[in-house]
C-alpha cells in the first residue's frame, strides 16, 4: 500500500472521521430517544403498593443483581464468556480505563483525565503506564504507576483483550450453533456486531504491540484501522444492538424496577 495512504489512514481516523462518527452518534441517539417521547402518553395510574423506601432501594439493587444470579444458575457459560470475559472484565475496563485510550479520550475531553488513577497498563510485566505517559504531552507530573498493584497480573490490556476475544469468539460460536438449529431470533446483525468487535480488538492488540512489523508506516496503518473500526462502531451504536449499553439496559431495568417493585410491590 502506498506510504501516503497509510499515513492518511491514521490521520483520517483522528482528524476527519472522528467528528463525522461523533455527529452521527449524537444525531442517532437523539433520534432514538425522540421516538420514546413520540410514543409517550399520560394516563391514570393505579394505587401503588407501598413497601417503604428501604424495600424500594433493596428492590432496585435486586432488579440489577437477580439476572446475574439467574445466569449463574442457568447460563453458566454465557455468564463466564458473555458477561464476565466480554463485558465486565473485557470491554468495559478496556475501553474506558486502558491507559492508551485515556490519552485519546483526554485529548478530546480533558476532564476525562480524572480517570488516570484507575488507568490500566498494556501488559502484566509493565506495571508502569510509561508508554501512555510519554503519549501525554499535555499533562505532566503524574504518578505513572498503576494503582492496581498485584492485580495488574489480570488488569492489563493484553490479558483483557484475550478475554474479550475469547468472549466474542464464544458468542459467535454460540450464535452459529443456534442458527444451524433454525432458531429465528439469530440475525445477520448479531454476527456483524460481533465480527466488528472482534476486528477492533484484533487491530487494537496488533497496534499496541507494533505488529506485524515495527515500522512507522505499518504501525500507523494498523492503529488507523483500529480507530476507524471503533469509529464505525460509535457511528452505528444508536442503530444497532450496541445501543443496549447506552440506553436499553438502563431504561429496561429501571422500568422493571418501577413496574414490579415500586408499583406492584413484588419482593
Amino acid at each position, binding site marked *: 500500500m502506498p506510504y501516503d495512504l497509510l499515513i492518511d489512514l491514521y490521520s483520517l481516523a483522528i482528524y476527519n472521521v472522528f467528528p463525522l462518527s461523533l455527529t452521527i452518534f449524537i444525531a442517532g441517539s437523539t433520534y432514538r430517544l425522540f*421516538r*420514546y417521547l413520540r*410514543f*409517550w*402518553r399520560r*394516563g*391514570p*395510574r*393505579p*394505587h401503588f*403498593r407501598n413497601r417503604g423506601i428501604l424495600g424500594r432501594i433493596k428492590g432496585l439493587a435486586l*432488579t440489577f443483581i*437477580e*439476572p446475574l444470579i*439467574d*445466569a449463574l444458575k*442457568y*447460563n453458566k457459560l*454465557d455468564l463466564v464468556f*458473555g458477561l464476565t470475559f466480554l463485558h465486565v472484565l473485557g470491554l468495559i475496563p478496556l475501553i474506558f480505563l486502558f491507559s492508551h485510550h485515556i490519552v485519546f479520550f483526554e485529548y478530546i475531553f480533558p476532564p476525562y483525565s480524572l480517570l488516570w488513577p484507575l488507568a490500566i497498563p498494556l501488559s502484566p510485566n509493565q506495571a508502569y503506564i510509561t508508554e501512555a505517559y510519554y503519549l501525554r504531552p499535555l499533562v505532566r507530573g503524574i504518578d505513572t504507576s498503576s494503582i492496581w498493584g498485584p492485580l495488574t497480573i489480570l488488569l492489563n490490556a493484553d490479558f483483557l483483550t484475550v478475554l474479550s476475544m475469547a468472549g466474542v469468539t464464544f458468542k459467535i460460536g454460540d*450464535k452459529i450453533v*443456534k442458527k444451524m*438449529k*433454525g*432458531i*429465528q*431470533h*439469530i*440475525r*445477520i*446483525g*448479531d454476527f456483524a456486531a460481533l465480527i466488528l468487535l472482534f476486528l477492533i480488538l484484533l487491530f487494537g492488540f496488533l497496534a499496541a504491540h507494533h505488529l506485524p512489523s515495527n515500522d512507522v508506516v505499518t504501525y500507523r496503518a494498523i492503529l488507523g484501522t483500529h480507530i476507524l473500526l471503533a469509529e464505525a462502531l460509535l457511528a452505528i451504536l444508536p*442503530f444497532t*444492538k450496541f*445501543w*443496549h449499553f447506552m*440506553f*436499553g*439496559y438502563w*431504561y*429496561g*431495568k*429501571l*422500568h*422493571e*424496577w418501577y413496574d*414490579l417493585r415500586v*408499583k*406492584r*410491590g*413484588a*419482593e
Partner: protein
Amino acid sequence: MMSEWSFEVKKARMSIRRFIRSINPVKLHYLENCVSCAACASACPYYPIEERYSPVNKAEELRKIYRKELTIAGKIAGNLFHAYEIRNENDVKRILEFAYRCSNCSRCYTMCPFGIDSGAMIVDIRGILLNIGYAPSLLRFLSDLDMRGELPESILKLWEETLSKVKGIIDTESIVERKGSDIIYIPSLIELVFYPEVIVDTISLLSKLNLKWTIPSKPMGLGMGMFIGDFSSVKTSMKKLNNYIKRLEIKEILLSDGGYLYPMLRFSLPEIVNEDVKYMITHIVEVLYDRLSMLDFITTEEKITWHSPCQLGRKGGVTREPLEILMKISSNFRRLPHDGLEAICCGGGGGMALLTREKYDHFRKLGLGFEVSEEEMLFMRDTEEAYKLSIREKMRDIERSGAEIVITSCPFCMMTLELGSKLYGPSIKVIHFSSYLINVIK
C-alpha cells in the same frame, strides 16, 4: 358458533396497523432493545420442550413485524434486517404455534438483563392473530361472552346452585348487592365453572371476618379477552364493572381468583377505563394478612407449601403475605425452592390450561355452543401436548420441597398442578387458599 380459520392479506395489514397504534415507550423498549442473548430461555416452562419456544424466539415474531413497519432499514431491505410482514397462511400457523406456547408468567421479564417482558409481547401477537381471524374457539367464545355480558342459562344455574350451598351460613338474598357495603366479593367465571367450592369457602371466610360485604346478583366473566389479546372485549367488560362498582358505591373489590384477573384489576384498570379508580382491589390473601393479629388458627404439622401464582405473586406483588400466614398455621411449612418473583410457572396461565380436550368437553357439557374445526383440532392436540410437558419443572420443584399439600389461589394453577401430579407426581393435594383457611380458622 364455528370459527373457521382463513387468511386474508387485508385483515393481516389492518391487524398489524392496529397493533402499531398501541405502541407506547415500554412496548417500544421491548421491541427494539433485545440483544438476542436468550438469558430469558430457561425462565419459560415451554422452553424445555423445544429450544425454539424460548421467549426471545417467540417474541421475535412481533419484532419482525415491528421492523417492517417502523424501521427505515426494515422498510428498505426487509429480509436483510429480519423484517417481515405476515404474508400467508403458513406465516400465521407458525406464529399461532408460538403464541400458544406461553403462559404469560413474566418470569422471562425478571430474568431478562434488559427487563423485557416477552409474555406481554405474546399477548400482542395473540391480538394480531385474533384480528386476522385466528384464535382458539373456546377462548374466543369466553371473550365474546364477556363482551356481550349475557351469560347462558347453564352458568346462571351454576351460580344459583353455588349460592344455595352457603344458605346455611348466610342469608344469600340479603347479602346480594347490599347497599352500604364496603366490600364486594367477585368470584371469577373460571372459578364458578371449575371450582365452585372455592366460592363457598371464600364466602364462609368472609362471614367469619365481621366485614360489611356483598356479592353481585350474577356471575361475571371479566377480562377474559386477555387470553387472546382481545382488548376491545377487555375494555368493554372493565367499563361495565367500573360503572357497576361506582353505582353500588363500593370501597373495595375482593377476589379469590389470583390469576390474570388480579393484576388486571389491581394495576391496569385505570388505564383500561381511562379514569382514576377510587376503590381498592384486594385478594382474600391480603384481607386475611391485614387481620392476621386478630385471627386464631388451629395449628398443624401438615407438610404444606404455597405455590405462588405468577399473576398474584410476580405480577400482583402479593409475595410475602401468603407465606407469613401459612407459616403461622403449619410448623411444617415447606417453602418451594423457587418462590415469589423467582417462582417457576406451572405452565397453565394465559388460558393455556383451558386448551385441552377435557376442558372443551367440560364447557360443552354446560351447553355452551361452540364448535371446533378439524384444523383447530390438530392445533389443539399439539398445544395440549406442549401444555402437559410444560408442567414438569414445577412438579420437580414441588417434589424437592417435600410438601404434600399445595396451597394456591389461581384456578388455572389448580387444574394444572392437579394434572401435573397425575402425570408426573409427586402425589399431592391441591387446594385453594380459602378452602384451606376455612378449616383452620377458629
